[in-house]
């Protein structure tokens, strides 16, 4: 829960950071590193990559803090930088890997096709397998849908925060979320959790 005094303290930190005080930057890093790491991790998928992306995002914060208008919340401004850094990283990675994604492997080591048909019988999966399939399908969602879904359902941001982070309207966020959930629901309709 963010109190009014926390907000004031953060404002003071930002003023000090704008004056070029490195100590203020260190405090902000300490305050936002865990939340930032969680978002990066969910978006890029590995702790090592998340660490690199998070560092790049903090450097961008330091260099661009003068462009931050204090009428908006620092958190959403930071999340926007973070999301952009993560998406840039994924784009570069996608170019490098030429859209390669490995085959799905079930517990018996057999390859699975990504099912997308209502006619197939429902397969009962363990929670772990279901989660792995879900991750792969989330990864394949269109960029905006993926970001909205991850920020909302894995990082617990409100629709309003997501709208501010992505610089779009609340309605657009709702549409992206609806489409993401519908797509995932369809793709995973042949699976059921044990």
């Amino acid at each position, binding site marked *: 829960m963010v109190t009014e005094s926390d907000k004031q303290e953060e404002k003071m930190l930002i003023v000090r950071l704008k004056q070029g005080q490195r100590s203020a930057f260190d405090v902000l*890093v300490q305050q936002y590193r865990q939340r930032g790491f*969680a978002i990066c991790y969910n978006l890029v998928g590995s702790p090592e990559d998340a660490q690199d992306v998070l560092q790049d995002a903090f450097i961008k914060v330091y260099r661009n803090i003068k462009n931050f208008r204090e009428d908006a919340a620092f958190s959403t401004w930071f999340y926007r930088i973070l999301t952009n850094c993560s998406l840039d990283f994924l784009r570069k990675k996608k170019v490098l890997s030429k859209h390669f994604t490995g085959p799905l492997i079930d517990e018996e080591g057999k390859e699975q096709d990504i099912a997308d048909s209502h006619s197939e019988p429902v397969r009962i999966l363990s929670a772990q397998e279901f*989660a792995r399939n879900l991750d792969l399908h989330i990864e394949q969602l269109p960029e905006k849908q993926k970001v909205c879904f991850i920020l909302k359902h894995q990082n617990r941001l409100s629709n309003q925060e997501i709208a501010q982070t992505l610089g779009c309207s609340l309605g657009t966020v*709702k549409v992206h979320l609806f489409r993401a*959930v519908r797509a995932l629901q369809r793709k995973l309709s042949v699976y059921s959790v044990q």
Partner: protein
Amino acid sequence: MIRCLFIKRKLYDYFDNSLSEIEQSKIKEHLDSCAGCRNNLKKIHEVIDTAGSKNIPHPTEEFWNKFQGELDDKLNDVLTPAYKPGFRERFSIKSVVLVPSVSVLVLVMAVSIQSNHRNSTDRFHQAMLDEMNVLEEVSPATTFNNGIEFSLDEAVLASEM
């Protein structure tokens, strides 16, 4: 059936609790009587609950110390402008290199001049010696010539007398 299609579009909002109270209660009413829609709602729950329960690593303090160190290094690299030497710096020779090179050059020149001088002196001496040898070799002719000159001188003296 039409009602199910309508409900299906609203199920995510129902799950998200972002509908009005009236809509929320109408959908709940429908769900109580429709197994298909209940199943759809169950699927949404499965997807979102699974996504929400994803394990996010909580890095240790050691990780964050390393993170901070690397971040400081990266930030210092970014903040310190890359050194670009100016025209004069790029084309100037450092004194460390310049002084020994000039000294060596002067030494080489001195040795070279000395050696040239010695050679020319030797050559001069050699030339002198050669000339003397030549003179020694041709001395009879000279004597002869001298003899003629002498005789001419004598003739001149004789005629003056």
